[in-house]
C-alpha cells in the first residue's frame, strides 16, 4: 500500500515546492500550473505531444529498470540515446535507396546495437575492472555528445547548409520512406506502440525468465548470487547491454519517428533534451517496474510538454521542471527508508536469520 503512495507523495511535494518557487518569481502558481495543464492536455495535439515526449522517457526508463534491478547504476541514458540516434541516422543517410520497411528495420536494429555497445563499455569496465559505473557512464555521455557534435559540424552536415554557408549543425532531412507511420493526424507515431510492447516484454523478461531472475537476484544480494554459482560479472554486462539496447532503440525511434534528422545546439543535451536523465526519474517514479514506468513516463512527458506552454504564457522558464525532477528523485530515494522500516516491522525474524548467516560467513573466512 505504502509502495504506491510514495511516488505520488513525492510528486505532490515537488509540485508544492515548485509552486513556492513560482510564487517567489512573482507569478501566481495556480495560473502557471493551469497553463502547464493546458499545455499538456488542453487539445488533441497537446495530448499527442505529451505522449511523443513520454516515448523516449519510457525507452530510457525501461533500460534503467533492467540496470537498476541488477544493482548497476546506468546513468548513461544521454550517451546511449545519442549512440542510437547517430548510428540510425548514418544508416539512413548512407542507404537512402533501400525499400522503406527494410531501411526502418535496419536503422532501428543498428540503433539498438549501438546503444548496447555504448552501455556495454561501462558494463565491461564495471564487471572486470571494477570501474565505478556512474562515473564511466557520465563520461561516456560527454564523449558521445561531443562525437555527435563533431560529425554534425562537418562529415554528416546537411550539404545544403554547406552550400548556403549557414552551417547549422544538422543533417539533411532523412528520406521520407523511413518516417515511422503516424497513428492519428498528430505528431503521435508508431514508436510509442513499440515502447509499450517493450514495456511488457521487459516485464516478462525480468519476472518470467531465468536470466531475468538472475539479474534481479544480483541486484538483491550479490554475495548470495555469487555463492549460488551465478557468474555475476557476466550478468552485470548482460544487464548493461540490454539496458543500453533499449535506450539506443529509443534514440533511433526519436530520429525516425519525430525529428527525421539529427541536430545539435552545441551543448551536450541539445539533441536529447535531457531525456537520458528524465528517463531515470521516470523509472524511479515507476518503482523500477516496467509497467509502472509507463504512467510515470506519461506524467513526466506531460510536465515537460506543459512547461513549454507555461514558459510562453507566464514566462516561468521550463528549467523549473528540471529542478522538480531532481526533487522527485531525492524524495523517492529518501522515502525508501520509510518503506524499509515498514517491511522490517512485518517480518523481523527473517532479518535476524540473515544476520546470523552473515556472521557465519565471516567466521568461515
Amino acid at each position, binding site marked *: 500500500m505504502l509502495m504506491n503512495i510514495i511516488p505520488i507523495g513525492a510528486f505532490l511535494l515537488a509540485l508544492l515546492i515548485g509552486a513556492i518557487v513560482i510564487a517567489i518569481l512573482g507569478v501566481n502558481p495556480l495560473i502557471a500550473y493551469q497553463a502547464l495543464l493546458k499545455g499538456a492536455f488542453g487539445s488533441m495535439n497537446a495530448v499527442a505531444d505529451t505522449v511523443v515526449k513520454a516515448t523516449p522517457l519510457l525507452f530510457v526508463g525501461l533500460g534503467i529498470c533492467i540496470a537498476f534491478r541488477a544493482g548497476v547504476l546506468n546513468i548513461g541514458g544521454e550517451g546511449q540515446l545519442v549512440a542510437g540516434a547517430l548510428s540510425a541516422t548514418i544508416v539512413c543517410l548512407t542507404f537512402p535507396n533501400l525499400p522503406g520497411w527494410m531501411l526502418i528495420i535496419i536503422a532501428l536494429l543498428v540503433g539498438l546495437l549501438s546503444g548496447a555497445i555504448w552501455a556495454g563499455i561501462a558494463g565491461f569496465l564495471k564487471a572486470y575492472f571494477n570501474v565505478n559505473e556512474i562515473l564511466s557512464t557520465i563520461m561516456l555521455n560527454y564523449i558521445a555528445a561531443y562525437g555527435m557534435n563533431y560529425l554534425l559540424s562537418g562529415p554528416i552536415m546537411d550539404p545544403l547548409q554547406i552550400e548556403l554557408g549557414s552551417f547549422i549543425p544538422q543533417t539533411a532531412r532523412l528520406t521520407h520512406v523511413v518516417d515511422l507511420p503516424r497513428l492519428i493526424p498528430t505528431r503521435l507515431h508508431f514508436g510509442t506502440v513499440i515502447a509499450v510492447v517493450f514495456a511488457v516484454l521487459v516485464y516478462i523478461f525480468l519476472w518470467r525468465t531465468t536470466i531475468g531472475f538472475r539479474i534481479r537476484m544480483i541486484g538483491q544480494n550479490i554475495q548470495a548470487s555469487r555463492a549460488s554459482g551465478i557468474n555475476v560479472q557476466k550478468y552485470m554486462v548482460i544487464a548493461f547491454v540490454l539496458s543500453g539496447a533499449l535506450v539506443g532503440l529509443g534514440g533511433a525511434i526519436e530520429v525516425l519517428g519525430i525529428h527525421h534528422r539529427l541536430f545539435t545546439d552545441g551543448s551536450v543535451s541539445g539533441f536529447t533534451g535531457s531525456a537520458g536523465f528524465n528517463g531515470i526519474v521516470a523509472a524511479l517514479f515507476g518503482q523500477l517496474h516496467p509497467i509502472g514506468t509507463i504512467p510515470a513516463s506519461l506524467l513526466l512527458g506531460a510536465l515537460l510538454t506543459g512547461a513549454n506552454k507555461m514558459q510562453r504564457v507566464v514566462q516561468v522558464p521550463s528549467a523549473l521542471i*528540471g529542478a522538480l525532477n531532481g526533487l522527485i528523485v*531525492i524524495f523517492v530515494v529518501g522515502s525508501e527508508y520509510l518503506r524499509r522500516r515498514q517491511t522490517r516491522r512485518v517480518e523481523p525474524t527473517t532479518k535476524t536469520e540473515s544476520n546470523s548467516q552473515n556472521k557465519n560467513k565471516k567466521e568461515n573466512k
Partner: protein
Amino acid sequence: MEAIIIGIVKSAIRLATPYLYASIGETIGQLSGVLNLGVDGVMLMGAFSAFYTVLKTGNLWLGLLVAIVVGAIFGLLIAFINVTLKAEQGISGIGVYIFGLGLSSLLFRTMVGTVQTVSGFPPLSVPWLSTIPVMGKIFFQQNILVYGAFALVPVSWFVLNKTPLGLSIRAVGQHPEAADSLGVNIVRIRYFTVILGGILSGIAGASLSIALLNVFQQNLTNGMGFIAVALVYFGAWRPKTVLIGALLFSTVNAIQIWIQVKGINVPSDFTLMLPYIVTIVVLAAMAKRRIHPPTALNKPFERGE
C-alpha cells in the same frame, strides 16, 4: 617554446583550483563513508550564487560567502538524505545533480538572462617569491582562491592524519561499529564531513565563476564535479595523490584551451572530449591497483539490535 610551456603550466595551476576544492571535499566525505555524487550540482549552485552576488554588489568576498552558505545548505540536504534517511547514495546524488543543474539554470534565466562577465579575484603577487624567474610567474602570481586550493592539500592531510577529528572521520568510514562502540557519534561526524564537502563544492563553483572564468552560463561546469569524484578514486582517498590527479586534469584542460586559442587545426569537439576519455582510462588503470575504498562507503550505518 619556453613562453608556451610557462603559459600552459601557469594555467594548469589555475585550473586545478575547482578540482582541488571539490575533490578534497569529496575525499573527506568518502573517508567517513558517504558517497556524494551531487558535487556537480552543488558546484553549479555555488557558481551561480557567487556570480549573481558579485554582479549585483561587486563585492567578491560577499560572493564567496554566499557560495559557502549555499554549499552548506546543499551539504545539509545531502547529509539528511544519505545519513538520516539512509538513501541509496548513488541515486540520491544523481537527484541532487539534476536538482542543482535545473535550479541554477532556472535562476540564471530569470535573474540574469544573458551571458555577462564580472571582474573576479585579481592576481595577487606574493612578495619576493613572485620575482623568482619562471617559478615566480607560474606559482606566485595567481589569485587568492588558487592559493587557498593548494593550501587545502596540506591542511586536509594534517587534519585527516594527525588530529583526533581526522581519526574519528576515518574510523567512521572504516569500522563504524567499532567507532560507535567507542562513543564516536557517527551521525554527527557524517553530517560534518558532508556539509564541509558541500561548502568546498560551493567554493569550487565560485572559483570558476568569480576567479577563473568570471562568467556564468547554464551547465557551466560541464561535468567537472563528476571528474572531481573520479579524482578521489584516482587519489586513493589521500589529499596528496588527489593533488597529482587534479594537476593531471588541469594540464589536459590547459592544453585543450591552448590548442583552441592557437587555432591549431584539431576539431574543438575532440579536444573537449579529452578530459572525459582521460577520466575513463585513468579509472580503469587505477582499478588494477589493490587499494580499497573505505569499507563503509555507500553503506548507511545501522546500529545492530
